[in-house]
């Protein structure tokens, strides 16, 4: 251990630079208004929604509209603020290990030019143990980016929902919770400390619970809601422990402080080396559990597909664009901790990257066997979230955030598109109720295609740019660039490539089954109204252009000032953010990854558009699979299909073993112990006491004590019986006794005297 020493507290340069400022633009300091608006809207809808002409939806739309405008202004203010460094930085007194402190002092800035100061504002929430716990906002690049994404997608989903859930039995209630969700999510992204983050984290979870179970009359829906909540609780256990560990770790490093939840302080101390690696590793693992549940990482992902039981706008907003990325966002927020904890720098594998990589493949494979269009998209979301986590695991922070940004748009677009489809055909089953819809629903078809191409990652749409950056960030390419990340994560590069091919293939399948071939459903499908199609087109438009916000450095087709704009404004360069390295982009990697995607599309396209189409013509009906497909021919393929169809048997494990085990044998056993052992003991003690009492009563009380009393009574009565004989009533016999007694007494007197 290095010797500890203290740097004196001061505000003029000593101590640990946090990279935050208490000043800044009015909009940056009063960002709390943005979550407050939907929160007020929630209360308003709850109490007055039923009496409003449009059932409270107008309140939700209005609040989100204003919140979006505020977010835009805040974004503009942040762009202004980002490069406006006057040195009014906040410092904290701190104990650090000297070696690390020196090593990191120079890293300040991380090669990105001068630092960006996050705008920090707090108020006292409560105090215990003399420690003040604060609530507040920490506004920096990722927070502003999330504010924009959440308010925009939420606004569009609100507008979309006014049509989609029109006439629903709980229309007002739906909008109330949509508002509450938006408020919670916005609170989460601006959280200043981990406790606040934890609260918002749970609140979005409960909104998700309520909205998944929106149609709770049907048992499968409430089952799905419960599953989502409980799975998330399992992860939240990690969050509770992780946050606690960090709280006291910071407290032990800061003199005169009991502990601290502050995100900035925690990260800064972690980056400075003041916290032991073991502590950070434990905290990272705990927090990772929370990420795995919230962001649907393998092996806690199983709730996410089931969550599709909720209304489609909910799936788009919560289970694709915003809530499920909360885990990714949390990693990004606590990156100092994870960066040190998992030792992302200079490694070639770590837990986070591996779980992320595994999740991308696992999720993508599952997407192949779904009949339900929303489940395809759900597994695709899992896969893409894995991509983001993997990116964070390999140190490609900006790429992960960028992918989060673009993914929010195209995935929301796809989900809302699937909702539009189901609105028309009243089903989500691609195989039995869809097909050939491109002729009936031109707007939905076009926007869905744009979303698909963006998701598959074909240039120049959004997904291509962000996916490419992640692949670059692995630092594992090495052919004409593509190196220089935080390590050589070659395995993750391979996983990413494989997933790119799989994604392209399953989306091709999905598009074919939905929009091509002949219509297999009933009735006459028709295009949805403008309140559905307009949000779709806006999101599709964003799916096209969002990628241009972060053109790679050295991209020769654009002027330099357009390169890496997203990274510049979003990635913090501050004391609370670790000094990460950036990979160099590579033309060759971009070309190869594009070829991989094209390969995936070609393979699936050949199967569906050529073989299945031909088989359909022969059969005369619109087929969805080849009658003699690979699964019927090859046992290995059949086994793989069975494995996937059963979702790797994870649900069997969780429901059958863990949940039923706990609810059934374990709980019954515990209760049995309660009734048979503990309660039995209590009863036994009681019964023994009663028995002992009876014994004492019969043997001791009745026989001995009472016996003595009775005996004395009967004895005296017997004596009386004897004595009464003397009492003859004859005066003379009395006199005789009197004289006899007197004589005796006289005799005694004589003898004694």
């Amino acid at each position, binding site marked *: 251990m290095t010797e500890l020493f203290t740097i004196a507290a001061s505000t003029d340069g000593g101590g640990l630079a946090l990279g935050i400022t208490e000043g800044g633009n009015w909009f940056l300091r009063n960002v709390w208004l943005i979550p407050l608006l939907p929160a007020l809207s929630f209360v308003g809808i709850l109490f007055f929604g039923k009496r409003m002409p449009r059932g409270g939806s107008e309140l939700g739309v209005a609040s989100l509209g204003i919140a979006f405008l505020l977010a835009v202004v805040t974004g503009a203010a942040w762009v202004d603020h980002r490069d406006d460094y006057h040195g009014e930085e906040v410092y904290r007194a701190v104990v650090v290990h000297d070696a690390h402190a020196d090593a990191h002092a120079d890293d300040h800035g991380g090669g990105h030019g001068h630092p960006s100061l996050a705008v920090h504002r707090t108020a006292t929430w409560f105090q215990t143990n003399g420690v003040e716990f604060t609530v507040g906002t920490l506004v920096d690049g990722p927070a502003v980016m999330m504010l924009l994404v959440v308010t925009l997608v939420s606004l569009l989903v609100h507008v979309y929902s006014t049509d989609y859930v029109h006439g629903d039995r709980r229309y007002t209630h739906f909008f109330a919770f949509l508002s509450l969700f938006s408020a919670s999510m916005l609170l989460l992204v601006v959280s200043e400390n981990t406790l606040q983050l934890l609260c918002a984290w749970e609140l979005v979870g409960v909104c998700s619970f309520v909205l998944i179970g929106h149609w709770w009359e049907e048992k499968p829906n409430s089952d799905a809601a419960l599953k989502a909540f409980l799975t998330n609780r399992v992860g939240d256990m990690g969050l509770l422990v992780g946050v606690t560990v960090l709280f006291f770790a910071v407290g032990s490093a800061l003199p005169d402080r009991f502990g601290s939840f502050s995100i900035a302080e925690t990260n800064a101390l972690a980056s400075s080396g003041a916290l032991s690696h073991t502590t950070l590793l434990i905290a990272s693992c705990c927090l990772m559990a929370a990420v795995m549940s919230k962001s649907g990482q393998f092996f806690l992902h199983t709730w996410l597909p089931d969550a599709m039981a909720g209304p489609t706008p909910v799936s788009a907003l919560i289970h694709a664009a915003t809530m499920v990325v909360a885990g990714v966002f949390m990693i990004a927020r606590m990156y100092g901790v994870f960066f040190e904890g998992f030792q992302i720098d200079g490694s070639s594998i770590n837990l986070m990257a591996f779980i992320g990589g595994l999740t991308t493949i696992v999720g993508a494979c599952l997407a192949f066997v779904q009949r339900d269009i929303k489940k395809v998209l759900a597994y695709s979301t899992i896969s893409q979230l894995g991509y983001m986590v993997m990116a964070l695991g390999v140190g490609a922070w900006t790429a992960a955030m960028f992918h989060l940004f673009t993914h929010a748009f195209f995935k929301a677009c796809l989900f809302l598109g699937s909702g539009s489809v189901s609105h028309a055909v009243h089903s989500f089953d691609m195989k039995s109720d869809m097909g050939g819809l491109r002729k009936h629903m031109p707007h939905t078809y076009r926007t869905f295609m744009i979303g698909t191409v963006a998701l598959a990652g074909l240039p120049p749409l959004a997904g291509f740019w962000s996916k490419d950056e992640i692949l670059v960030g692995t630092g594992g390419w090495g052919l004409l660039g593509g190196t220089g990340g935080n390590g050589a994560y070659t395995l993750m590069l391979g996983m990413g490539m494989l997933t790119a091919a799989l994604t392209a293939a399953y989306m091709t399948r999905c598009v074919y089954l939905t929009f091509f071939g002949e219509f297999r459903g009933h009735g006459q499908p028709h295009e949805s109204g403008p309140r559905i199609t307009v949000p779709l087109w806006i999101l599709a438009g964003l799916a096209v252009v969002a990628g241009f916000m972060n053109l790679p450095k050295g991209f020769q087709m654009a002027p330099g000032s357009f390169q890496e704009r997203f990274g510049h404004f979003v990635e913090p360069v501050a004391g609370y953010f670790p000094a990460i390295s950036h990979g160099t982009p590579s033309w060759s990697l971009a070309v190869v990854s594009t070829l991989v995607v094209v390969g995936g599309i070609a393979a699936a396209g050949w199967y569906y558009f050529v073989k299945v189409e031909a088989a359909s013509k022969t059969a005369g009906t619109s087929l969805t699979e080849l009658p003699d497909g690979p699964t019927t021919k090859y046992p290995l393929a059949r086994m793989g299909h069975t494995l996937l169809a059963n979702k790797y048997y994870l649900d069997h494990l969780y429901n059958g073993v863990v949940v039923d085990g706990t609810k059934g044998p374990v709980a019954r056993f515990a209760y049995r112990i309660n009734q048979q052992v503990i309660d039995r003991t209590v009863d036994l003690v009681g019964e023994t006491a009663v028995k002992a009492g009876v014994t004492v009563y019969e043997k001791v009380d009745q026989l001995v004590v009472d016996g003595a009393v009775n005996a004395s009574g009967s004895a005296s009565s017997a004596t009386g019986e004897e*004595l*009464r004989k*003397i*009492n*003859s*009533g*004859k*005066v*003379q016999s009395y*006199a*005789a006794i009197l*004289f006899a007694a007197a004589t005796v007494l006289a005799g005694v007197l004589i003898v004694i005297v």
Partner: protein
Amino acid sequence: MLLNQFLLLSAVLFAIGVYGVLARRNGVLVLMSIELILNAVNLNLVAFGAFRETVGGEVFALFVIAVAAAEVGVGLAMVLLLYRNRRSIDLTQIDQLRG
């Protein structure tokens, strides 16, 4: 001093009185026997008083005579009532106080 003779006389009187009380069945005779006993006592008191040369003996004797008069009055009244109710003054027949 002639103490012994008085005491002897007194003892004889007392013994006669006791015999009368225990042996006679007639109520009046029993009362008379009681008088004998009391007078035996009086004789004792007066004799001891003279012997000790105090007047206490005489004083006590006077008291006893007064009490004896009263006693005989009450006793005779009881015997009279007894006779009125039962037409007999045989004491052996009167045992209503038997326990």
